[in-house]
């Protein structure tokens, strides 16, 4: 059963084209490779 008020809250405003730069800059580009690198880096420091 759909509740209108709850459903309407799920809708978020869409960014406009002028705001595309902000969207790109705020994009989190961290992937598992980066996490893995951090982990490996931490291990090395510990070993040293």
């Amino acid at each position, binding site marked *: 059963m759909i*509740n*209108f008020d709850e459903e309407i809250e799920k809708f978020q405003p869409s*960014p406009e084209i002028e705001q595309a730069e902000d969207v790109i800059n705020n994009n989190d*580009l961290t*992937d598992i490779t980066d996490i893995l690198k951090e982990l490996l880096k931490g291990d090395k420091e510990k070993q040293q």
Partner: protein
Amino acid sequence: MICPNCGSNMSDKRMRCERCGTDLTLYKKIINASNEYYNNGLARAKVRDLSGAICSLHSCLELNKKHTNARNLLGLIYYEMGETVAALSEWVISKHFKPEDNDADEYINKVQSNLTKLDNLNQAIKRYNNALTFAKQGSGDLAIIQLKKVIVLNPHFIRAYHLLTLLYMKDGENEKARRNLTRALKIDVSNTTTLRYLRELEAPADATDSLANQETLKSSGSASPIMPISSYKEDKPNIMVFVNLVIGIIIGLALFAVLIMPSITKKQKANENANYVNQNASLAVQQEKDAKINDLQTENDNLKDQVAKLQGQIDGFVIPEDKTNAYDVLFEAAQKYDVEQAKSESERDFTGIADILATIDEKQYGSDAAVALLTQLRTEIYPVVSEGYYQSGRSNYNRAKYEDAQAYFEKAVKFDQENVDAIYYLGRSYDHLDNKDQATVYYNIVITDFPDSSRVSNAKRYLEQLQ
């Protein structure tokens, strides 16, 4: 393959980096997994399972953010779903990781080159945001209007379809909601929101309350947050609308008849009266003109009669012949008189002039000066001429040439009726010619008209002898 630690190129078959010695087993597994997610996302995209493709591609990019193909495909999927900004951001990031030989260049250029379409997409986003604001504020009608325009500007904007569907469902317009969801399904076949709304619309009516009744239940104090949506029902035709319409028409006609018709009728009558007055005035003017025409015609006839009469008088007027010559005769007589006057007294002969003057009728002269001249000439010439004829007559009388003497004496008397001697001797001449009647006449003239004359006694004596 590129080593994630030192960035050196190496063979794909190697399990350890030749330069830095980093163990790449795990890294290779991550790369393989990202590729599998990419393949899965591609397969889903090909069957239009866009939502599923997005999940797979996100997973791919979480494992390998530099997977250019996955990022480009994700941008394409976002663009197909109407998420223009998300698509552009993915392509830009893709270009960042792979500046050369990247399909993202082509996608970005295609979007930016068509400025009209780009502007439409931007307008669609703005109107969607406005519609969302209206919907959250409770102005569903305004939101629906905006969303209809959004769909026209960007027919692939799935979120707009979802919001519009939700608003239709709230208003109970389930058929319209279903049509929207059908269009949304054609774009993305596995969109969970679309499928959820469709299932809601297909739910049986008697088992659930309608989404449209949620607010009434809320206002009545109902605690249940979840309300069912009733099935679509056709509204029964409302007869009262037609009845009200008919009543309104009747009332309107009645008001028209009561308020407006009298003024129209009054105005028409006023116009008719004005026309009648104007016609009467024009008729009076016409009659006046006719009377004037008649008067002028009568006057014209009278004038014509006068002209005819005057013309008759003129025609009947006899212009004396040689009227102009009459003056010439007078002038000639005067001129001759002057010539004779210039001569010596013994050489003067006025007899010709006297004969001319005797033929002139002073009545033909309109000029007083001419008459005066004529009179003057006669006064001066006639006595002289009469005396001359008397002397001639005495000369012939003394030689017993009584007939000649009588002629001379006649002329002498003609030019001077006061010449008593000429009259006496004319009587004597008639007496010698045995014309006793004429002799008697002239004897009586001497006796009567010249009683103081010396010839009276002889005239009486000869008259006694004749009697």
